[in-house]
């Protein structure tokens, strides 16, 4: 018996030792390992529809063509992505524009490198909507002034764009009461009347509509024409040290974006591989628009309005952020 315990104890230490060893090893390879002309880059993203071009580019060989091998990590939210990229655990990350601007004004060294995702630009036909529950007396975004509206993150892109919708409809955007709620819980919260409205994206958007929610505005469309919602970014250190890898990532991403924008059927298929979106929702939901380049004018609008709403400590420098 004692021997068994001694054995168990020894095994434990060996395990502990190997665990420590392996963590030391992977830490040193964080800079993007290259072998035989192929550079492996770690990209931190969120498992949502918006990031489909990355998977399309991987499957279609756009990244391989430019000598890049993708290792995609799925984070649960943007909060884990920015620190991971800045500390060098990942070479690239995916983040919404407002979060990047917030990072920049907090002196976090981020640098946008490529377009991520755009709104469709079509009112009431975007992948993001401002919805009210079934049977609500609200028929226009204007009436949401003074009402409770759910956003996935307070003081972020949801605030700015929902305010834009209400302002456009003639309401007072300063009177909206924002509450924080994850997208996936919004359909239930609307259904139970816990909130008067919700800033919601796909696939929860289609789910909410199928339960009778009404679309009263398209925040991403109302905020700016052809709004760039999110971008791929890297750290300033990495961009300075590896201009060649960044260039190749930009070129490959551009091809992946263009291909995804033209082939919605393939996008829907690939989204089904990295999410668990049920087939019925997958075929019905609205896909975003993936242009090749980010729209700087729309980002400047987000920066200006966000500054007015007090989202940033100082005025963001959009030129410095952009590729």
């Amino acid at each position, binding site marked *: *018996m004692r021997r068994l315990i001694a054995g168990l104890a020894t095994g434990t230490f060996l395990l*502990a030792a190997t665990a420590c060893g392996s963590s030391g090893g992977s830490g040193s390879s964080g800079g993007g390992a290259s072998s035989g002309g192929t550079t492996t880059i770690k990209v931190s993203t969120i498992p949502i529809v918006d990031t489909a071009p990355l998977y399309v580019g991987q499957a279609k060989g756009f990244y391989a063509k430019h000598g890049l091998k993708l290792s995609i*990590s799925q*984070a649960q939210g943007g909060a884990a992505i920015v*620190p991971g990229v800045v500390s060098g*655990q990942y070479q690239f990350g995916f983040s919404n524009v407002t979060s990047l601007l917030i990072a920049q004004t907090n002196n976090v060294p981020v640098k946008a490198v490529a377009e991520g995702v755009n709104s469709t630009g079509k009112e009431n036909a975007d992948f993001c909507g401002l919805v009210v529950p079934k049977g609500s007396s609200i028929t226009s975004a204007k009436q949401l002034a003074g009402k409770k509206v759910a956003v996935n993150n307070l003081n972020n892109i949801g605030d700015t764009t929902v305010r834009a919708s209400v302002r456009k409809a003639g309401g007072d955007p300063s009177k909206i009461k924002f509450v924080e709620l994850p997208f996936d819980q919004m359909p*239930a919260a609307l259904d139970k009347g816990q909130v008067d409205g919700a800033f919601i994206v796909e696939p929860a958007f289609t789910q909410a509509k199928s339960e009778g929610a009404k679309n009263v505005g398209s925040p991403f469309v109302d905020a700016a024409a052809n709004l760039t919602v999110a971008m791929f970014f890297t750290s300033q250190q990495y961009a300075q040290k590896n201009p060649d890898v960044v260039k190749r990532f930009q070129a490959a991403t551009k091809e992946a974006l263009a291909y995804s924008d033209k082939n919605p059927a393939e996008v829907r298929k690939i989204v089904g591989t990295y999410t668990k979106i049920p087939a019925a929702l997958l075929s019905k939901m609205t896909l975003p628009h993936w242009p090749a380049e980010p729209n700087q004018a729309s980002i400047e609008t987000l920066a200006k309005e966000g500054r007015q709403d007090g989202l940033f400590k100082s005025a963001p420098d959009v030129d410095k952020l952009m590729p």
Partner: protein
Amino acid sequence: MKGLNTALGAAGLAAFLALGEVVPRTGLVKESYFPPTSRIASALWDEITDGAFWSALGDTLTGWAIGLAIAVGAGVVVGVLVSVVPYLREATASTIEFLRPIPSVALIPLAVLLYGTELRSVLLLVVYASFWQVLIQTLYGVQDVDPVAEETARSYGLGTWARVRHVLWPTALPYVMTGVRLAAAVALILAITAELVIGAPGLGQQIAVAQSSQAVPEMYALIVVTGLLGLLINVGARTVERRALAWHQSVRGEVAV
């Protein structure tokens, strides 16, 4: 008696499952938020036949096992050292009592900053949570050593190592085993939490993906899997405990009944 208990247990479970089927079907709760048992079962089958599920299960178990092993190893060694080295217990008591109540989940931001969404963030949380369970049990176990036995061993001229091995360890082992059993359960909770919140690969991440994908039955199916995993780990830990303590009064007593 045992047969009756098993039958009652099975009947209870069957009634619970039937309730899960009937309540959503009758519309007491919405089917889209709480799918009936049969939908969950079919989603579970879809998961089991999917390779991604098994690799996620493997990731979760890897994080759990490595984390638990480190916590048990470190907890036992630190516990014995702190008790054996004079004055160390008094010197560390306040620090331990300060660090121990910090909930492991409060360290999530730290884990994300240090290790991103990798296995190491899971390990940090798992080890932090389960280490204290083992350490505290080891400390109490060592305290329980019979002074007469200790003095007797001393008078027979046993060295420090021999006393640790023949007097201290057998006394502390039942406590340590309790610590290990508690740590095994805590380690699973923290592994799943880390995956769910941070997005490190594993069952927790799969649950989060199902949730954000509006795939409600799949989400419940994965939750059922984590429950089964907890059950298996508890049964496994009890078996190990019984084996390691086969000589001990507590276990021998149980067998006699």
